């Protein structure tokens, strides 16, 4: 067994462990849009998929993504999927969250992660950032959004909700 072997083993151990270890949604207190503290676990769709979309009122690609999903969301909902739009707006811009979502007629559940505790606990280092969970288990992570990528997300949702049924 030479050094390269050992290195390789370590990489494989790391790799398999990262696959085997279930990474779950952490239990963190976040705020509802009305300002009530709730536990992140209670926002999960217990029997299906949950999409957490981290966004902010000043983030144009984030809004483009949520607009694009919103336009087709009736179709998505048929697959027992819930979308939680987690606003990372801080005190400067968070007052704009409610008028914006009403002005856009988004009907997603919206959470306020004002000091980015939820975002930090998930090691998210930029927005837009999308996480999909099956129950509590995280099955998908993606940073960024380009026009058209909502279709890829829809295909992922479709595939994984079919696998469930």
């Amino acid at each position, binding site marked *: 067994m030479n050094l390269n072997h050992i290195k390789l083993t370590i990489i494989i151990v790391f790799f398999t462990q990262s696959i085997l270890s279930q990474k779950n949604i952490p239990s963190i207190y976040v705020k509802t849009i009305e300002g009530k503290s709730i536990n992140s676990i209670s926002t999960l769709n217990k029997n299906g998929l949950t999409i957490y979309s981290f966004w902010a009122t*000043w983030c144009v690609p984030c809004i483009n993504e949520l607009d694009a999903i919103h336009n087709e969301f009736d179709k998505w909902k048929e697959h027992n999927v819930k979308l939680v739009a987690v606003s990372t707006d801080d005190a400067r811009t968070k007052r704009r969250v409610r008028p914006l979502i009403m002005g856009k007629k988004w009907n997603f559940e919206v959470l306020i992660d004002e000091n980015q505790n939820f975002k930090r606990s998930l090691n998210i280092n930029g927005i837009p950032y999308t996480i999909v969970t099956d129950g509590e288990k995280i099955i998908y992570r993606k940073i960024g959004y380009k026009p058209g990528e909502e279709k890829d997300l829809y295909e992922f949702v479709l595939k994984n909700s079919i696998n469930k049924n």
Partner: protein
Amino acid sequence: MKKKKIFYLLILIFFNNSSLNSQILNNLRSSYESYSAYYIDDSKTGDFNYEDRFRSNNYLNLKSNIGASWNFELQIESYLPSSLLNYSPDFKNTGISTFNLEYINDKINLKLGNFYEQFGSGMILRSWEDKDLGINNSIRGLNFKYRINDKISLTSLFGQQKKGFKYSKGFIVGLDTEFDFSNETNENYTFIAGLSFVGRNDDQTSGTTYHNTTNLYSARIDFSSLSFYSNIEIINKSKDPVMQFGDFYDDFVEEGAAFFFNSGFIKNGIGVDFTFRRLENMALFSERNAFGNSYNQSIVNYLPALTKQHDYSLANIYVYQSQPNVSFVDPNLIKTGETGMQLDIYYFLKEKSFFGGQYGMNLALNASIWNNLDGNFDFVNKNYTTNFFGKGEKYFSEISLEIRKKWSSKLDNTIFYLNQFYNKKYIEEKFGKINSNIFVIETTYKLNKNKSLKLELQHLSTKDDNKNWSAFGLEYNLSSAISLYVSDLYNYQNPKQDKKIHYYNVGGSYSKGINRYTVNYGRQRGGLVCTGGICRYVPESTGLSFSITTSFF
């Protein structure tokens, strides 16, 4: 060589051990960010006159847990050979920037080590991290939260604030309580109230007319129904010496105060939000001597500018910064704080209506105005009185309208108009006032499922300061992973011939899953870089920069 083998074997054993260690490793989560630049000399923006042309900021964050109750976090940062231009010199070499242990159960949350916290809207206390601005003012100490029941929760903390890899000498103590008075049987209404206290002790500065400790008290209420919401916050700050020309004087010690009111009306398709805020002598630093430092270090409370955070580059040339401080520069330039308001209206024009068309149309209107406080100022005796109502010299105002329209499944347009007034004399303590108009048109065209083109054209017109600017940006997304762009800002009417500079940039990004790599070559416009209402000055520079954002496991 043998030693290394043993080392690797030990690691292997450690990893595959089913003990506590392996639980920690199993649950390990990481993130890694790296931002690097190589600066070059440029005949237009000038030679690079600093040490180290190559500079790099690196952040590795590791988190893990044992069961559901114990969490650990470690963040290692490395600035090698030195930090990017205009980050604090306290960021140097490699070190541990965050380390904490946390215990959680249903009722209790106890954190030992570095933590981030915010009371209310942060006007009294906020510790947070913003890598773009080089802010990480986490507090190292103890943070204890206790949820007495669903209605009452309590947060307490004490510690010292991080400053680069060091810690400020002042101590911070804080207490926050939140009461939820909402009626459980009627979910349409929520009513939440909060009380906070923050004390800052700094024995590095002393005087006969003030204490080492400065105390802040705050009360807030938050009401919300299905179509209406309103919240109010009031803050009082005890006597604190005012910094004048880098020093403190026994005869210039003042109290501070803040008042915040926000209210909104919402229904499907329309949202209106109004905010009023008044700040008087409100800045608080964990060390008094840190007052006004250009790296935003040792900030205890968060007093952002309440203006729209613009996305377009030309709209970010004359950016308002909040004016919470007392400043007696000369008899014609006296500031004691700011008072002003902001209004936002969002409106959706329905699908299949005359203006809405097939997909509808989004409108967003924003307006804000900020002034100095009204009062009597005595420059010679360093004395002033202010009026709660009324306003002084105007600092800033703007009004903007944004129209977003989807024409077809392939074509989108955004049109943006902005009118700004910027009082450079008062905001930057320089001279001049700027009236400007900015117009932007943005078009996105989808070529197929994952290919799209975005073109952005901008123009800023003003008769003041450096006169007119134009800008364009072209972005080509050639797959879901790869994106390329080219952009330029051009101050084509600058009165100084050698300042008519093209601030061009070309670059691209590759992102897949959680991995993102970017590369950029071009010129950075000198001036303010702002995120979240806080700004820092960056010098002009030219160079190649690249970034990595990833996660190992």
